[in-house]
């Protein structure tokens, strides 16, 4: 029920986690849940701009996008996807533990999610380092040689890429701009999520989430799942262009 009947808010038996401006626990849980869904909607709009740019440029410069995508390591990318999906699973388990008041289970699940999140970021930093070393970071030091001379480049040879004409090779910089912008934004959201996980682990150990007030964990779960879903789209769109 959206609006509970009018009750005296200053009853002594109001639970401590019920904020003063809410009439009931249900209203508070409902409101914070709605808040998280709305926030995720804003995040969708935020990433949406990047997806729109991707759509347009991929349509225009398909060959450059293929060549750029072949430069990414599918093994690392798949590993990251598996890691994140696993972390979503552990997170979902954590929510269940909170709802069924299993404190140690909750703490374990949160720690696992945290570790998996760190794994993801670790793999991402390995990938970013490789891109930096190969001069595929857009800007002053961007190098076209992997695309003009694919036989000198491992990844391009493995994918069987032919040399790109110079003008199309220049457009690979747009691909990498989108790669870094999209995965970078995503990584930023992961870092924020991991930070909140640390906070949650500490609070969970103190028993904050297993006394009937699980909204924080549930809402964080929503956020984590959203970050996971965005990654799955990014993986498909960035890593898997024209792979045979």
């Amino acid at each position, binding site marked *: 029920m959206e609006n509970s009947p009018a009750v005296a808010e200053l009853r002594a038996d109001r639970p401590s986690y019920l904020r003063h401006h809410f009439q009931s626990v249900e209203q508070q849980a*409902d*409101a914070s849940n709605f808040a998280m869904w709305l926030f995720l909607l804003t995040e969708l709009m935020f990433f949406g*701009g990047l997806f729109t740019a991707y759509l347009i*440029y991929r349509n225009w410069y398909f060959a450059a996008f293929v060549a750029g995508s072949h430069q990414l390591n599918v093994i690392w990318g798949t590993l990251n996807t598996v890691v994140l999906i696993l972390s979503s699973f552990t997170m979902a388990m954590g929510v269940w533990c909170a709802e069924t008041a299993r404190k140690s289970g909750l703490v374990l699940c949160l720690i696992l999610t945290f570790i998996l999140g760190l794994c993801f970021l670790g793999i991402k930093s390995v990938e970013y380092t490789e891109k930096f070393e190969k001069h595929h970071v857009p800007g002053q030091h961007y190098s076209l040689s992997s695309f003009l001379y694919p036989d000198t480049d491992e990844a391009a040879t493995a994918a069987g890429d032919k040399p790109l004409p110079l003008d199309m090779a*220049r457009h690979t910089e747009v691909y990498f*701009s989108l790669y870094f*912008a999209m995965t970078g934004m995503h990584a930023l959201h992961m870092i924020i999520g991991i930070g909140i996980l640390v906070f949650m682990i500490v609070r969970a150990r103190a028993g904050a989430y297993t006394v009937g007030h699980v909204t924080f964990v549930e809402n964080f779960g929503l956020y984590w799942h959203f970050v996971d879903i965005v990654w799955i789209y990014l993986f498909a769109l960035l890593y898997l262009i024209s792979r045979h």
Partner: protein
Amino acid sequence: MSTDTLVTPPEQSAPTIPEVNYLTKEYGLRSWLLTGDHKRIAILYLISLSFFFCIGGTMAGLIRLQLLTPHADLMSSDTYNKVFTMHGVIMVFLFLVPSVPATLGNFLIPMMIGARDLALPKINLLSWYLYVIGGILVLYTMISGGVDTGWTFTTPLSTHYVNTNVLSTCLAVFIAGFSSILTGLNFLITIHKMRAPGMTWFRLPLFVWAHYAASVQMVLATPVVAIAITLLMLERMIGIGIFDPTKGGDPLLFQHLFWFYSHPAVYIMILPGMGVISEVVSTFSRKRVFGYTAVAFSSVAIAVFGFFVWAHHMFIMGISNYAVLVFSLLTMLVAVPSAIKIFNWAFTLYKGSITFEAPMLYAFGFMGLFTIGGMSGVFLGSAGTDIHLTETYFIVAHFHFVMVGGMLMAFLSGIHFWWSKVTGRMYSEKMSQMAAVVTFIGFNLTFFPQFVLGMLGMPRRYASYPPEFQALNILSTAGASILGAGYLLAAFSLLWSLKYGAVAGNNPWRATGLEWQTQSPPLTENFTEAPIMDHEAYDYAWLERQNSRDEVPHGE
């Protein structure tokens, strides 16, 4: 200083300001800077907004002084470019977008729906801090040399061709944008989940409907400008090439991303003002708003349609003719709900019992000036005339009519209307009425000549112009000085009242909203017990029964 400061005597249930209220609950800077009380946050916003408005207004004054003469006599081109950019950035992002929602919306929405606070008080406070940080970054930009890209940050000018403080300005706008998103988020959750028992959707005041519609836009559109600005910053900092034609990027992509927000932004700016007008016109005609459902739905219609018209800012930029056809059509459609509202407000006056206090005078000003501004928008929405009129002073006149003649007047109307609720005191009616009239006259003198200038072809953002345009520019500057005087008078009247204004009592206007059934200023928790909404919105008959029964109103 006399007691005769009202046209009608107030309903007084207490001749003095109540001792316990949200202002006196706690004292000290910490209690203000760490507050969760939506009313205190609204006051914090009001102070910071006024501060930035003064800076933006000073920029406007400098612009008009420069344009007194055809040559760049007062400021060099570079300086002028920085001045109008700052004027735009401050006025749009630091004043107009937050104005009514962050002050009046924050203060009133929980009270209007019978709640004790917004759904997320800490997020509300965070929202204000983000605004302040954005503002500080803008101040930093100003003192460290300014930025001269225009508030629209057109690429590739802003990415590769200026060496001013684009980054700090973009960061400021990014952060202020999050302030806006969080405010909108808060409003949506509050309106959905925290209405008092009996407060159905169609019993909500139209002020709440307007803020609901604006909040939907805040939440959905602002993230897109965030990403546009992020990409702009990346392009400027490291040259990623996403908007650079030599690298395969497309500068028009930035235009699409930027205007996808910036068009809904103008509805974010105006809808809350329209909400204010609904309340004011109803109260001062003693009548329910004519066509309540139509006004409520037209707010939502504006919010929805507002998302589909952004490319009308790009009609001459080489987009396809067929795209122009579609966007022009949608622009015409989005104009209709605004027309509906104007007529509904006008007919609210029909068979009413009308008085002419300052809020009502500002509301009348709004109705006339917004009609002109809105109609000039139709001139621009029609693709053929847009070709001649776009990028000239016609555009400048158009948006100043709707934003200053419309939104700012609505803001002043609302501030005056709810001043008694916020502070417990009445402003000086005579001074404020005079301020309203002076503002109206000054405004018309300032901006109407600009329509003519635009038709004559004077381009915008010109530090110096051909001499044949001088006469109209002088007229415009003269009007600006009168306009400025009007604002100063209004501010003086309000500030004067803090010390010398008459005590207002609960409901000096005998208005119907739930917020008027509490003490002025309200308690921190708004209501001592949750109100039950058992009557329709704008139910003056209910109000009469309340007063005749001499029942102690809620919250006493």
